[in-house]
């Protein structure tokens, strides 16, 4: 049973570029959340997708956008990259939106913006 998988694992971009990160949730999970973890900080909630719609959003600008596909996989897009966007981006899945219980995390995509 595959857990949460993310790609790519590492990438380097320059300021102003755009990036797309991908996530496949754990089997049986239909809700995907994205988190940004800056160095020395805890994961910060970006947004959550359920039934192909953004259901909740954290305090992130519109440069951060996402998508969920019918097979529950998800993408995170960041436009006009800034140096401060350098971080580990974590995808997490859960069985259904709003349910109590743990999130299952992928290994993350480490983005470096130069």
């Amino acid at each position, binding site marked *: 049973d595959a857990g*949460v998988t993310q790609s790519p694992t590492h990438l380097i971009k320059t300021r102003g570029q755009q990036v797309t990160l991908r996530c496949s949730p754990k089997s049986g999970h239909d809700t995907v*959340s994205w*988190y940004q973890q800056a160095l*020395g*900080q*805890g*994961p*910060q*909630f970006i947004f*959550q997708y359920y039934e192909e719609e953004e259901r*909740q959003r*954290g305090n992130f600008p519109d440069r951060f956008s996402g998508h969920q596909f019918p097979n529950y996989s998800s993408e995170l897009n960041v436009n006009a990259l800034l140096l401060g966007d350098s971080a580990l981006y*974590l995808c*997490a899945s859960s069985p259904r*939106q*709003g349910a*109590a*219980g*743990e*999130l*299952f*995390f*992928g*290994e*993350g995509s480490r983005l470096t913006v130069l």
Partner: protein
Amino acid sequence: DQQVKQNSPSLSVQEGRISILNCDYTNSMFDYFLWYKKYPAEGPTFLISISSIKDKNEDGRFTVFLNKSAKHLSLHIVPSQPGDSAVYFCAAVSYGQNFVFGPGTRLSVLP
């Protein structure tokens, strides 16, 4: 404004002794609390959780205590092992809302 705080960035403990990691929260609407462990180059993995209707939950060497009046929870690891060395995140959630994570505490268990 941090809703979940872990005031100790790091903690060192001797192997075999008890590790106590602390977490404080400000939002009284939180009703479920979790601890995650993170090794380098890996995503956080779930460790143990507790509902707000309980004050203690135990799973093997790991016990989480919740003091709702003080808005404080702690994770006890007994006995500590070198493989427990990792960053530990406290997280809190209220029904239907997103998880809020603390900044983490780096635990080093010394052999």
